[in-house]
């Protein structure tokens, strides 16, 4: 997985060091450090970072001025202010320019990581959603292979608004610092064949199918969320899962009005499995 690249603009080597330490062992990497506003602008053009942390007092210009210049170059730029000062006037001015978040020095690792997480997970922010999705896709394909011994022939994904079931759907709610839902959806035939592979038997009752597909979904969700919780680190930002519900029926629409979701389809020798993952953003 590619790391998310961060540019630090701060004239204090000590502060640069604190921010670097705060991002250590996370999915973020510091791709550059600038000690002046003009160097920050030069490095921004050159490195095209995913995120920028900006100090407000720079030797050659005001930090918010520098933010505005960066956002003129790249209107989609994601900038957070990290400074000793954090008052209403700074927040209002910064927000008007397009700054995403404000942190006071000394910035705490958990606060910065959660702030970054919320920025990249912002609604409509494809990069953020894609990022969470990667954990789910990894757990989905790995567990198909590990638990059934079958190969995953191909994996496709598409962004969609509502899901229409193929016969058997397992829904698990996501709650905590992020809210959403994961759903596994298969046709009844694929569910039966898949359960045979999971259990290693030739005959399966409907009850076995419901239980097995439900537990399989629970495992994928558990693995994915554990990985995401490792990234979020602190307990108060933890994501939790609700128990699975099973929907049985064809052509059933599953709608979450506030959610845009991604459907991932894994093709196997016995047919396709569909996993749908959606988030509504942080609390």
């Amino acid at each position: 997985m590619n790391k998310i690249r961060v540019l630090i603009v701060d004239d204090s080597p000590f502060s640069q060091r604190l921010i670097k330490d705060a991002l250590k062992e996370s999915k973020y990497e510091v791709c550059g450090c600038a000690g002046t506003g003009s160097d920050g602008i030069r490095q921004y053009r050159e490195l095209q970072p995913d995120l920028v942390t900006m100090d407000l007092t720079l030797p050659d210009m005001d930090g918010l001025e520098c933010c505005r210049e960066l956002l003129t170059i790249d209107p989609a730029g994601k900038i957070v202010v990290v400074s000793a000062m954090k008052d209403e006037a700074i927040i209002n001015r910064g927000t008007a320019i397009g700054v995403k978040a404000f942190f006071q020095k000394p910035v705490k690792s958990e606060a910065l990581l959660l702030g970054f997480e919320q920025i990249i997970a912002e609604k409509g922010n494809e990069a953020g959603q894609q990022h969470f999705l990667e954990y789910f896709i990894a757990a989905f394909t790995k567990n198909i292979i590990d638990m059934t011994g079958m190969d995953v022939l191909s994996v496709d994904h598409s962004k969609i608004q509502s899901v229409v079931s193929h016969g058997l759907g397992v829904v698990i709610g996501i709650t905590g610092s992020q809210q959403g839902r994961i759903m596994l959806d298969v046709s009844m035939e694929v569910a039966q064949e898949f359960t045979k592979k999971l259990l290693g038997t030739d005959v399966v009752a409907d009850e076995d199918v419901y239980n097995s597909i439900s537990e399989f979904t629970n495992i994928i969700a558990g693995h994915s969320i554990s990985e995401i919780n490792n990234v979020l680190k602190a307990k108060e930002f933890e994501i939790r899962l609700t128990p699975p519900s099973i929907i049985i029926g064809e052509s059933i629409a599953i709608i979450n009005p506030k959610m845009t979701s991604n459907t991932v389809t894994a093709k196997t020798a016995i047919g396709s499995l569909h996993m749908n993952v959606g988030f509504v953003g942080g609390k």
Partner: protein
Amino acid sequence: MDVKVINPFIDAIMNIMPQLGFQNVVKGKLSVGEQFVESKGITVLVGLTDQLRGNIAYNFTEATAMSIASKMMMGMPVATLDDLAQSAISELTNMVTGNAATRFEKDGLRVDISPPSLVVGENFKLKVSSAKFLVVEMIADSLVIELNIGIE
């Protein structure tokens, strides 16, 4: 499963429905369901986790869902369960479950809820994570909302 778990949900409905313009809210039949919830057409799933884990399936007929949505939007006519109506119904279950969760918390049980999933279609059934579940009907101005409460 302790039958008392239904009380916070009943209280939540009694509390919230009048705020949405319903005059007469009463409790209807109470029963125990096994295995499957048969959908009436529109079923909204909300998950619970933390010190109480399970799922609530709110079950409505399409006509009831549309009437409730219309009332929630201050009498605006609702001819189909469109985006706006879907959002209203989903918000209703979110409010009720959230209100019930606050009541559980007052009794010392921490409960966290998932966003609602609205399930719409013909002839489908659901399993709510526990083999047995409590079914309670709530009647608001003659509209029936069936709550299926499955707690692990």
